[in-house]
């Protein structure tokens, strides 16, 4: 049975400083949600709480299991071959075969026994994606996974993530500060501001999506307005990243 992500009344406080305040959030099974917000809005903290990396100060969360994370940096163990990095923490028969299959899905079957230091940024990030997928997660957490790859690779990664999401059907929470990325990928955009949900916007655009679509432009306008970004051009605009969240 597939369960959903439920967050109720979640508060996280760091040294008297509330990063998340009485936050409620639901993600349906198989739903792709993008969490958008500027630096310091608490979006990474929310992801870390859902990933079990950060304790909640108060409130209740329920997360389907298994869940898996793709981090902003690939975070591969440099002393393990790519395939062993993907299989990390997994036991039993056929682990290597499963890891190999996951790497094939992300197009890295030719790099199984490479050292992580020899991978390009995009390859390393795809290996990180394979490491998450091999666990067959019901809930996939993506922490700005495309922020550190070049623009072309990012576009290919977007397609890859959508393909894999459609194939495996996990619930997805994508943390990003890139409005276009959120619009291209998500069923729903949740806007976080100062630890609270400022807006919850369903994105009903048909896939595959194009940023040239007029509805796309409209939505982008609306979201950037909500984020308080002054707009002139229609090019891709990212919220400037400053202080780490």
């Amino acid at each position, binding site marked *: 049975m597939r369960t959903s992500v439920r967050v109720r009344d979640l508060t996280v406080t760091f040294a008297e400083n509330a990063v998340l305040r009485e936050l409620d959030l639901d993600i349906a099974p198989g739903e792709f949600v993008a969490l958008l917000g500027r630096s310091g809005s608490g979006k990474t903290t929310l992801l870390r709480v859902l990933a079990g990396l950060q304790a909640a100060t108060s409130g209740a969360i329920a997360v389907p299991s298994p869940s898996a994370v793709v981090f902003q940096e690939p*975070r591969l163990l440099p002393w*393990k071959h790519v395939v062993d990095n993907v299989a990390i*923490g997994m036991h039993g028969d056929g682990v290597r075969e499963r890891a190999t299959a996951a790497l094939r899905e992300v197009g890295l079957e030719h790099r199984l026994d490479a050292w992580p*230091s020899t991978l390009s940024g995009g390859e390393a990030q795809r290996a990180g994606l394979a490491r998450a997928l091999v666990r067959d997660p019901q809930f996939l957490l993506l922490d700005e996974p495309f922020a550190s790859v070049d623009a072309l690779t990012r576009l290919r990664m977007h397609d890859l993530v959508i393909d894999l999401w459609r194939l495996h059907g996990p619930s997805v929470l994508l943390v990003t500060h890139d409005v276009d990325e959120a619009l291209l990928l998500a069923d729903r955009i949740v806007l976080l501001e100062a630890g609270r949900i400022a807006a919850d916007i369903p994105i009903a655009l048909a896939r595959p999506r194009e940023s040239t679509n007029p509805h796309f432009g409209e939505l982008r306008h609306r979201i950037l307005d909500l984020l308080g970004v002054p707009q002139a051009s229609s090019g891709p605009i990212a919220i400037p990243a400053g202080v780490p969240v």
Partner: protein
Amino acid sequence: MLFVLLWQLGSSSGIIPAAKLAAPTAILSAFWTLAVTGALWSDLIVSVGRVAAGFTIGITLGVTLALVVGLSRPGDFVLDPLLQMFRTLPYLGMTPLLILWFGIGEAPKIALVAFASVFPVYMTLLGGIRAIDPKLIETARVFGLGRWETIREVILPGSLAPALVGVRYALGAAWLSLVVGEQINADRGIGYMIMDARDFLRTDIIVVGLLLYAILGLSTDAIVRQIEARALAWRPKTLGANT
């Protein structure tokens, strides 16, 4: 080569008296005699055995202590200051004390070697553990690694490079302490061979002993370097990284 040639010339012409320093040819023939009679091998085996025993104890202790101190707060608070204190002890000066504690058999020699090899391993491994990217440890947790698995898969491999440098230092210190240990009250081993030769003014045998120490030190270092090359093959190649 030139140096050995000059040395040989000096010895043959009598400028270097054999009682001070034997000629290279005399050293070679002494080496040959000792090797053929077997005296050399039995002493060699005894010395290698002492280093092996002491070094094993030292490394085991060093790794255990570094893990305890590096991975637990109480260990850090209680053990580290204590170990730092011990580390500053001039351990070679402790020989008389070790003799009183362990007698004059194998134990004080092995203890001296162990003492010498603990701290280089402890210091470098601890430094390596503290330098591990906490994000990797967090990642291990996310992907379901338990405490022991994290130590085996992340912490130890991640601190192996500095720890192996420590092992090389430890080996140097181990052989040095063995030299000291064997000069006091040994009835077997290379050190004994040297001390025995001194009593008979056999400078050729003394030099053979010294050379043996040097060869053993170099070969054990070469073994560790081989291990380094294999175990650290994952490291990106840097300019001139051959050692």
